[in-house]
Protein backbone atom coordinates (compact mmCIF):
# COMPACT_ATOMS: atom_id res chain seq x y z
CA UNK A 1 0.00 0.00 0.00
CA UNK A 2 1.38 3.40 -0.97
CA UNK A 3 1.10 6.11 1.78
CA UNK A 4 3.20 8.69 -0.06
CA UNK A 5 0.55 11.50 -0.15
CA UNK A 6 1.50 15.14 -0.76
CA UNK A 7 0.06 18.09 1.22
CA UNK A 8 -2.15 19.05 -1.72
CA UNK A 9 -3.57 15.52 -1.93
CA UNK A 10 -4.44 15.60 1.78
CA UNK A 11 -6.14 19.01 1.55
CA UNK A 12 -8.21 17.78 -1.35
CA UNK A 13 -9.23 14.62 0.43
CA UNK A 14 -9.71 15.89 3.97
CA UNK A 15 -12.97 17.90 4.30
CA UNK A 16 -11.83 19.49 7.61
CA UNK A 17 -8.76 21.01 5.91
CA UNK A 18 -10.97 22.20 3.08
CA UNK A 19 -13.31 23.81 5.58
CA UNK A 20 -10.35 25.54 7.24
CA UNK A 21 -9.17 26.96 3.90
CA UNK A 22 -12.72 28.10 3.19
CA UNK A 23 -12.84 29.85 6.59
CA UNK A 24 -9.55 31.65 5.89
CA UNK A 25 -10.88 32.86 2.54
CA UNK A 26 -14.11 34.03 4.21
CA UNK A 27 -12.19 35.93 6.92
CA UNK A 28 -9.96 37.65 4.32
CA UNK A 29 -13.02 38.60 2.24
CA UNK A 30 -14.91 39.93 5.25
CA UNK A 31 -11.85 41.90 6.44
CA UNK A 32 -11.59 43.65 3.07
CA UNK A 33 -15.33 44.31 3.10
CA UNK A 34 -15.19 45.77 6.63
CA UNK A 35 -12.34 48.07 5.60
CA UNK A 36 -14.35 49.18 2.57
CA UNK A 37 -17.39 49.80 4.83
CA UNK A 38 -15.23 52.04 7.00
CA UNK A 39 -14.25 54.05 3.90
CA UNK A 40 -17.95 54.36 3.00
CA UNK A 41 -18.77 55.80 6.43
CA UNK A 42 -16.04 58.43 6.00
CA UNK A 43 -17.20 59.07 2.46
CA UNK A 44 -20.84 59.75 3.50
CA UNK A 45 -19.58 62.20 6.14
CA UNK A 46 -17.38 64.05 3.62
CA UNK A 47 -20.03 64.16 0.90
CA UNK A 48 -22.65 65.23 3.40
CA UNK A 49 -20.45 68.27 4.03
CA UNK A 50 -20.24 69.08 0.31
CA UNK A 51 -23.97 68.88 -0.38
CA UNK A 52 -26.20 69.26 2.64
CA UNK A 53 -29.68 67.76 2.35
CA UNK A 54 -32.19 66.51 4.91
CA UNK A 55 -31.56 62.86 3.91
CA UNK A 56 -27.82 62.93 4.70
CA UNK A 57 -28.26 61.59 8.28
CA UNK A 58 -29.96 58.50 6.84
CA UNK A 59 -26.93 57.82 4.63
CA UNK A 60 -24.70 57.98 7.70
CA UNK A 61 -26.98 55.62 9.64
CA UNK A 62 -27.14 53.15 6.74
CA UNK A 63 -23.35 53.13 6.27
CA UNK A 64 -22.81 52.70 10.05
CA UNK A 65 -25.28 49.80 10.16
CA UNK A 66 -23.48 48.21 7.22
CA UNK A 67 -20.16 48.57 9.07
CA UNK A 68 -21.68 47.06 12.22
CA UNK A 69 -23.12 44.12 10.28
CA UNK A 70 -19.84 43.35 8.50
CA UNK A 71 -17.84 43.62 11.77
CA UNK A 72 -20.29 41.31 13.53
CA UNK A 73 -20.10 38.79 10.68
CA UNK A 74 -16.29 38.92 10.72
CA UNK A 75 -16.10 38.33 14.49
CA UNK A 76 -18.73 35.59 14.26
CA UNK A 77 -16.74 33.83 11.53
CA UNK A 78 -13.48 34.05 13.50
CA UNK A 79 -14.70 33.12 17.00
CA UNK A 80 -17.95 31.19 16.65
CA UNK A 81 -17.98 29.39 13.31
Amino acid at each position, binding site marked *: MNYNLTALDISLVDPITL*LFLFKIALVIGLSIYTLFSLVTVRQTV*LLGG*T*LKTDVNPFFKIISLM*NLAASTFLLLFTIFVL
Partner: protein
Amino acid sequence: MFKACFSDIWEHPSKVTFMGKDKDEKLILLMRRHIITNLPWAITGAALFFLPMFLTFLINLGEITAFDFLSPGYISVLLIFWYLIVFMYFFENYLVWFFNVYLVTNKRLVDVDFLGVINVQVTDAPIENVQDVTYSVSGIVETVFNFGDVKIQTAGERREVEFEMVPNPSYVQDVVSDLASGVNNEL
Protein backbone atom coordinates in the same frame (compact mmCIF):
# COMPACT_ATOMS: atom_id res chain seq x y z
CA MET B 1 -38.50 62.99 1.34
CA PHE B 2 -39.10 61.02 -1.89
CA LYS B 3 -38.31 64.11 -3.93
CA ALA B 4 -35.09 64.70 -2.01
CA CYS B 5 -34.01 61.09 -2.59
CA PHE B 6 -34.97 60.50 -6.21
CA SER B 7 -35.45 63.80 -8.07
CA ASP B 8 -33.13 64.37 -11.01
CA ILE B 9 -34.17 67.98 -11.50
CA TRP B 10 -35.43 70.16 -8.67
CA GLU B 11 -36.36 73.83 -8.93
CA HIS B 12 -35.75 76.01 -5.87
CA PRO B 13 -34.88 72.98 -3.70
CA SER B 14 -35.87 73.34 -0.08
CA LYS B 15 -33.57 72.31 2.79
CA VAL B 16 -30.62 71.90 0.40
CA THR B 17 -27.39 73.82 0.72
CA PHE B 18 -23.79 73.32 -0.34
CA MET B 19 -20.30 74.05 0.88
CA GLY B 20 -19.29 77.67 0.22
CA LYS B 21 -22.79 79.01 -0.37
CA ASP B 22 -23.08 82.73 0.33
CA LYS B 23 -25.83 84.11 2.57
CA ASP B 24 -27.45 86.07 -0.26
CA GLU B 25 -27.04 83.24 -2.76
CA LYS B 26 -30.22 81.48 -3.90
CA LEU B 27 -30.29 77.96 -5.25
CA ILE B 28 -32.36 77.94 -8.43
CA LEU B 29 -31.80 74.49 -9.91
CA LEU B 30 -30.42 71.24 -8.60
CA MET B 31 -29.77 68.60 -11.25
CA ARG B 32 -28.47 65.08 -11.38
CA ARG B 33 -28.08 62.66 -14.25
CA HIS B 34 -31.46 61.47 -15.51
CA ILE B 35 -32.81 58.71 -13.28
CA ILE B 36 -32.99 56.31 -16.23
CA THR B 37 -29.15 56.35 -16.43
CA ASN B 38 -29.19 54.24 -13.24
CA LEU B 39 -30.84 51.36 -15.07
CA PRO B 40 -27.61 49.44 -16.04
CA TRP B 41 -26.33 49.12 -12.47
CA ALA B 42 -29.86 48.49 -11.15
CA ILE B 43 -30.23 45.53 -13.55
CA THR B 44 -26.75 44.22 -12.63
CA GLY B 45 -27.62 44.54 -8.94
CA ALA B 46 -30.89 42.65 -9.45
CA ALA B 47 -29.00 39.88 -11.27
CA LEU B 48 -26.49 39.66 -8.39
CA PHE B 49 -29.41 39.51 -5.93
CA PHE B 50 -30.97 36.50 -7.64
CA LEU B 51 -27.65 34.71 -8.38
CA PRO B 52 -27.56 32.53 -5.18
CA MET B 53 -31.11 31.29 -5.85
CA PHE B 54 -30.15 30.44 -9.43
CA LEU B 55 -26.97 28.64 -8.28
CA THR B 56 -28.91 26.69 -5.62
CA PHE B 57 -31.36 25.63 -8.31
CA LEU B 58 -28.50 24.48 -10.58
CA ILE B 59 -26.77 22.57 -7.74
CA ASN B 60 -30.02 20.79 -6.84
CA LEU B 61 -30.78 20.08 -10.49
CA GLY B 62 -27.34 18.63 -11.24
CA GLU B 63 -27.12 16.90 -7.83
CA ILE B 64 -23.63 18.39 -7.38
CA THR B 65 -21.96 17.19 -4.16
CA ALA B 66 -18.82 19.40 -4.27
CA PHE B 67 -20.18 21.73 -1.56
CA ASP B 68 -21.39 19.05 0.83
CA PHE B 69 -18.44 19.74 3.18
CA LEU B 70 -20.02 23.12 4.07
CA SER B 71 -22.20 23.09 7.17
CA PRO B 72 -25.46 25.12 7.27
CA GLY B 73 -23.65 27.70 9.44
CA TYR B 74 -21.03 28.35 6.75
CA ILE B 75 -23.66 28.54 4.03
CA SER B 76 -25.65 31.09 6.09
CA VAL B 77 -22.57 33.27 6.68
CA LEU B 78 -21.66 33.04 2.99
CA LEU B 79 -25.18 34.08 1.97
CA ILE B 80 -25.26 37.02 4.41
CA PHE B 81 -21.83 38.14 3.15
CA TRP B 82 -23.03 37.92 -0.44
CA TYR B 83 -26.10 40.05 0.28
CA LEU B 84 -23.94 42.60 2.12
CA ILE B 85 -21.82 42.88 -1.04
CA VAL B 86 -24.97 43.29 -3.17
CA PHE B 87 -26.27 45.93 -0.75
CA MET B 88 -22.96 47.80 -0.90
CA TYR B 89 -23.06 47.68 -4.70
CA PHE B 90 -26.51 49.33 -4.70
CA PHE B 91 -25.60 51.83 -1.99
CA GLU B 92 -22.32 52.95 -3.60
CA ASN B 93 -23.92 53.43 -7.02
CA TYR B 94 -26.80 55.34 -5.48
CA LEU B 95 -24.38 57.60 -3.56
CA VAL B 96 -22.44 58.30 -6.76
CA TRP B 97 -25.68 59.31 -8.48
CA PHE B 98 -27.03 61.29 -5.51
CA PHE B 99 -23.92 63.39 -4.85
CA ASN B 100 -22.97 64.01 -8.49
CA VAL B 101 -24.94 67.22 -8.73
CA TYR B 102 -25.06 70.28 -10.94
CA LEU B 103 -26.22 73.43 -9.19
CA VAL B 104 -27.41 76.68 -10.67
CA THR B 105 -27.61 79.61 -8.29
CA ASN B 106 -28.25 83.30 -8.90
CA LYS B 107 -24.45 83.82 -8.68
CA ARG B 108 -22.74 80.79 -10.21
CA LEU B 109 -22.83 77.31 -11.69
CA VAL B 110 -21.45 74.53 -9.52
CA ASP B 111 -20.43 71.08 -10.73
CA VAL B 112 -19.81 68.46 -8.04
CA ASP B 113 -18.09 65.40 -9.51
CA PHE B 114 -17.93 62.39 -7.29
CA LEU B 115 -15.59 60.01 -9.10
CA GLY B 116 -15.58 56.49 -7.73
CA VAL B 117 -15.19 55.89 -4.04
CA ILE B 118 -12.86 58.54 -2.69
CA ASN B 119 -12.39 61.24 -5.36
CA VAL B 120 -14.45 64.41 -5.21
CA GLN B 121 -13.98 67.36 -7.54
CA VAL B 122 -15.95 70.60 -7.14
CA THR B 123 -15.78 73.31 -9.81
CA ASP B 124 -17.75 76.49 -10.18
CA ALA B 125 -18.09 79.33 -12.67
CA PRO B 126 -19.54 82.79 -11.96
CA ILE B 127 -22.77 83.39 -13.84
CA GLU B 128 -21.46 86.70 -15.30
CA ASN B 129 -18.72 84.72 -17.09
CA VAL B 130 -21.24 82.66 -19.05
CA GLN B 131 -20.92 83.44 -22.76
CA ASP B 132 -22.69 80.70 -24.63
CA VAL B 133 -25.05 77.89 -23.64
CA THR B 134 -25.78 74.95 -25.93
CA TYR B 135 -27.50 71.64 -25.42
CA SER B 136 -27.48 68.34 -27.27
CA VAL B 137 -29.80 65.36 -27.21
CA SER B 138 -28.43 62.46 -29.21
CA GLY B 139 -29.50 58.85 -29.31
CA ILE B 140 -32.74 56.94 -29.00
CA VAL B 141 -32.80 56.65 -25.20
CA GLU B 142 -31.96 60.36 -24.76
CA THR B 143 -34.70 61.39 -27.16
CA VAL B 144 -37.32 59.10 -25.63
CA PHE B 145 -36.60 60.17 -22.05
CA ASN B 146 -35.68 63.77 -22.93
CA PHE B 147 -32.24 64.12 -21.41
CA GLY B 148 -28.90 65.28 -22.75
CA ASP B 149 -25.79 67.42 -22.22
CA VAL B 150 -25.74 71.16 -21.62
CA LYS B 151 -22.44 72.87 -22.49
CA ILE B 152 -21.71 76.27 -21.04
CA GLN B 153 -18.82 78.31 -22.45
CA THR B 154 -17.36 80.71 -19.94
CA ALA B 155 -14.85 83.55 -20.12
CA GLY B 156 -12.91 82.36 -17.09
CA GLU B 157 -9.91 80.12 -16.70
CA ARG B 158 -12.09 77.06 -16.94
CA ARG B 159 -13.45 77.45 -20.45
CA GLU B 160 -16.33 75.04 -20.34
CA VAL B 161 -18.75 73.69 -17.76
CA GLU B 162 -20.74 70.65 -18.82
CA PHE B 163 -23.91 69.29 -17.27
CA GLU B 164 -24.02 65.70 -18.48
CA MET B 165 -27.20 63.68 -19.09
CA VAL B 166 -29.45 66.18 -17.32
CA PRO B 167 -33.22 65.96 -17.78
CA ASN B 168 -35.00 68.52 -19.96
CA PRO B 169 -31.79 70.16 -21.34
CA SER B 170 -33.68 72.81 -23.34
CA TYR B 171 -35.24 74.10 -20.13
CA VAL B 172 -31.86 74.08 -18.35
CA GLN B 173 -30.31 76.00 -21.25
CA ASP B 174 -33.14 78.54 -21.06
CA VAL B 175 -32.73 79.04 -17.30
CA VAL B 176 -28.93 79.48 -17.51
CA SER B 177 -29.18 81.83 -20.53
CA ASP B 178 -31.84 83.96 -18.82
CA LEU B 179 -29.77 84.17 -15.65
CA ALA B 180 -26.60 85.09 -17.55
CA SER B 181 -28.31 87.75 -19.66
CA GLY B 182 -30.05 89.16 -16.56
CA VAL B 183 -26.81 89.40 -14.61
CA ASN B 184 -24.88 90.80 -17.59
CA ASN B 185 -27.57 93.45 -18.22
CA GLU B 186 -27.34 94.54 -14.59
CA LEU B 187 -23.55 95.00 -14.85
